[in-house]
């Protein structure tokens, strides 16, 4: 025989060893499109606060050195958008889209860029300045409070309405959902 079966066995064994230490995510091999948002028994591990949940009062550590509370913002605004940024190319694409296509249409909504990767407010401010998003309100997520609360990561976009209820908590994608959610806020 031209090919020794042993080599195939080695490869299979290696695949098996991978799957033992880190189970292969079958969700990608057989993707599921079922809406499971309200199936409590299938709640995933990293859900955080969901759409419909109320948000406790939060403190924002702004890059300009000031602090602001969620309740105070919502006294003056119809809602808040929080975008989790690590100042990456994808983040910049999203932030540009918000800047030019969404923010101008919603003057009564506060738009926050939430830096969850910098160690200090000065560092967050440096990143905000270097990337040129000084026309946004930006804040540092001290101690990962918001990251843990919402399970935020790169591109996570949160919308909170005037009653402190979450209207959106998901990836930004193409911005369409954010537009739709904001349009529905009274």
């Amino acid at each position, binding site marked *: 025989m031209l090919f020794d079966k042993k080599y195939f066995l080695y490869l299979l064994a290696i695949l098996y060893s991978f*799957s033992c230490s880190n189970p292969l995510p079958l969700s990608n091999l057989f993707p599921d499109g079922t809406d499971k948002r309200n*199936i409590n028994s299938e709640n995933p591990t990293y859900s955080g606060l969901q759409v419909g949940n109320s948000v406790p009062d939060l403190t924002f550590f702004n890059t300009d050195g000031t602090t602001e509370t969620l309740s105070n913002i919502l006294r003056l605004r119809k809602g808040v958008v929080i975008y989790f940024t690590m100042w990456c190319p994808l983040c910049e694409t999203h932030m540009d889209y918000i800047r030019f296509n969404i923010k101008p249409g919603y003057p009564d909504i506060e738009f926050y860029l939430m830096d969850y990767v910098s160690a200090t407010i000065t560092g967050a401010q440096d990143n905000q300045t270097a990337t040129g998003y000084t026309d946004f309100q930006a804040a540092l997520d001290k101690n990962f409070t918001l990251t843990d609360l919402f399970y935020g990561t790169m591109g996570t976009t949160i919308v909170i309405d005037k009653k402190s209820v979450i209207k959106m908590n*998901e990836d930004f994608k193409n911005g369409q959902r954010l537009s739709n959610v904001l349009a529905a806020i009274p």
Partner: protein
Amino acid sequence: MNFSKKNITFAMIAFIAVMAGFFFPLSAASCCGGGSSASLVLPKFARFLYDTSVAHELYDGFWNSKGQYQKDPVGSDLRQMRINMGAAYRVHDNIQTFLSIPYVVNINQYTGLKNTTYGAGDITLGLNIELFNDIRCVYRVLSLDDLWPAIYLGAKVTVPTGISPYDNIPNSFDITGLGFYTFDFGLLLDKTIKSWNISIAGNYSVGLQRPVNMEYGRYIEPYNITPGDRLNLTASTGYTFTFDSMDSLTFTFGYGYVKDYFSKINGLENQISGFEKHNLLVGLAFATADQNNVIKLNNTFNLPLNGWGINKPATITTILEYSHVIR
């Protein structure tokens, strides 16, 4: 042809090492099919090849949507390591198949956050059809036929065995795969005349639409997503020094262009997706006299200049690779 005892022993050691937690990637060298050192392409007439490689990718700034080069956040250090194991096997005089199994280690360090994760990457299976019947490396050109290159038509499927944003994971640092089935179709032209080699390759990738009901461990309103098609073009040239022992050392210089077109969400183009990037490559390959053992060191990098990319990180990728051919 049977494997020698020595080869079997080597494979056993590799297997044991992998099981012990080390990682051996597999790839191939095509020396004297056409003469280049493209990975996972068997040399003409060779039966089997296995290849292991370790790639280290350092992120070094990025281009924004306007093509302006920008530095990474202050104090950040972002890297990815990939260990690949691959094999190529000839199933017909002119048809070879291959399999590549990657393992990914993500190392991300910002001033306020450190994260290291690892996991299986996306497995790739494919085949290459050789549109030539004899070795196309020539020492001198005596006829027009001597100028005819080795031509390969290739197709491969990438299986989403890695961890994607659509899995039950807490954040983007855990991603080791794309999450899509993708199909690639490629053409490779390869010609060696005496000590000089030139390779031109083109590849077009199409991904399958998939449903999504979860993002980073959070169930969301379901939608369908289709990844953007990808175009990949590369051209390289190399020069080989042959020692008295007939061992050889090849220097390669190349250029690559990659473009991702718009992805689609629920059938509509996502106008803020896609990217573009220009790459440069320098490489060094040592081959034993019988060309059955090849060690390669390749470095792919970008020039940190405006216009050399759009929407994409600039990276410096160093790959150390060992290939063994069994004829």
